[in-house]
């Protein structure tokens, strides 16, 4: 079934695609060395340094490229952890039901009621702040419940459908039904959930690094760079401006994709 993509989805895909291409490029090549401090302090955006330079004389564009890579890597890995574990839990509880379902979902409700950012902060403080990948672990864990809830609901509605009964009558095993028959049908809820999860991950990582309990030097993520930029706001406002706008554009593009996907889904229904 091929339909015309709606304009939101298309715009979102274009913005995100461009961002990804540039960020990917940035992991291999940056116009200047991101950590070199020799390009003149506080020079405003110009043809040579399109985002200007900071107080150490570093090229901000190169730093933003590198930092977006870090942010993207963290966001993608946290969402993967959350989505994989969440789908697994959702599939098992939603499809099989029973007491395990009840218990896990009550626990889930309790966890989702608690603000995820606080929970992640708590986990980081328990695991130890400043450890390199405690952010990924904390945010990944925190994202599991919301994925589990969405996926469980979907698996639970699908399990009573005729095609599932048909497959079972033909002798398909539970594993086969889950993987071959049900999983592809959950994509319509999984994809929008992924876009929302991705955006939450970007924002949460940025917040934590901004607070100094996420990514720490020598690594730099966009959030960490913003906290750095805040200190030189009076002399180099362009640092904060371009770093912040990069986050906004990244989240905006993926947000549009999510909105477009949901719209497309409504049109089918």
């Amino acid at each position, binding site marked *: 079934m091929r339909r015309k993509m709606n304009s939101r989805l298309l715009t979102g895909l274009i913005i995100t695609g461009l961002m990804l291409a540039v960020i990917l490029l940035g992991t291999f090549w940056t116009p200047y060395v991101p950590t070199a401090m020799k390009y003149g302090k506080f020079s405003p955006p110009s043809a040579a340094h399109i985002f200007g330079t900071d107080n150490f004389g570093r090229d901000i564009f190169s730093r933003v490229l590198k930092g977006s890579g870090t942010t993207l890597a963290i966001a993608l890995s946290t969402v993967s952890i959350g989505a994989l574990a969440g789908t697994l839990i959702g599939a098992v509880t939603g499809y099989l039901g029973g007491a395990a379902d009840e218990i896990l979902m009550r626990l889930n409700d309790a966890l989702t009621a608690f603000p995820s950012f606080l929970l992640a902060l708590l986990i980081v403080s328990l695991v130890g702040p400043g450890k390199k990948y405690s952010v990924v672990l904390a945010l990944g864990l925190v994202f599991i419940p919301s994925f589990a809830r969405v996926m469980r609901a979907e698996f639970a509605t699908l399990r009573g459908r005729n095609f599932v009964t048909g497959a079972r009558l033909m002798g398909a095993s539970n594993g086969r039904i889950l993987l071959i028959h049900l999983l592809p049908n959950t994509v319509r809820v999984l994809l929008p959930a992924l876009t929302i999860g991705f955006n939450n991950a970007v924002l949460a990582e940025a917040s934590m690094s901004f607070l*100094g309990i996420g990514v720490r030097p020598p690594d730099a993520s966009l959030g960490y760079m913003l906290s750095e930029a805040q200190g030189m706001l009076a002399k180099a406002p362009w640092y904060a401006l371009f770093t912040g706008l990069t986050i906004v554009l990244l989240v905006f593009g993926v947000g549009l994709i999510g909105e477009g996907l949901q719209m497309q889904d409504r049109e089918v229904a």
Partner: protein
Amino acid sequence: MRYVLTRLGMLLATMLLVSFLTFAAFEAVSGDPARNLLGTEATEEQVMALREELGLDRPFLLRYAEWLAGFFSGNLGVSYSYRQPVGKLIGPKLEISLCLSLMSFVMIAVISIPLGIFSYHRTGGFADWPRTVFNQLCMAVPPFFTGILVSWIFGILMKVFTPGDFPGFRQDFGESVRHLFFGAVCLGIPRIAMTVRMLRATVIEEMNKAYVRTAISRGHDRRGVLTSHVLKNSMVPVVTFLGQTLAELVGAGIVVEQVLGIPGLGRFLVLSISHRDYPVVQTIVVILAFWVVLAGTLADLINQSIDPRLRLGGNRG
């Protein structure tokens, strides 16, 4: 009334559970605070003496009970890094954070509810584009970036307030309120966008229901149906969402407090986490958790007065 009582009972039980889990979690990771405090050069006797002084040599459950009793009588233990009673340290900060959250919450509710309700027409299509873009943009702006922009534009360029120099209510009330106002705006923008989006979706869904068509075919006008029927039916998910927002504002507030230099609870929490000052972290976490549970309960209670079906424990139809 029975519903209210059960709900309050559940509230207490949840709070007890949360406080226990927090206590246990911090117990498990904090290591030996006495050793941490004194450093590696202290002798074994010194460490033992301090353990006794801090009461760390007694059994776990006893200490939990004592800590809980202390929590409600205002005796929250002693901060490791400041050597001061936690309650005295936290009190003024709690006041500031509470003001910030409530201010932002009122802003969100007052702006987003009318916007969400009266933007139900014009769905899909090209005319919808500017609204979607604006909405998505507002959701994409992280509060700390707004905070930076605000302190640049209003602080450095226009000098309306001095970011990072929060005077406190007693010293300079106006300046303090300005700080909190800008903080509330930063916190509010993405949440307003989210609330408008979800309220609008709910109203649209409700307007497409059969009873609305019936009412209109009987000659009521759309506005009238909206205000007298649809609104009440759309409120339940929104109240739940606003309850969550109220809970989440505390978490989001941490970052805004940091950006604008507002000495609130969140900022103190982050500071204490990096100092590994566990008595302080523990207390703040429990206070925040109570706040979250309270917000949820409040939303539930309001909802059951809107929709009596909820009182029977059934799902919304």
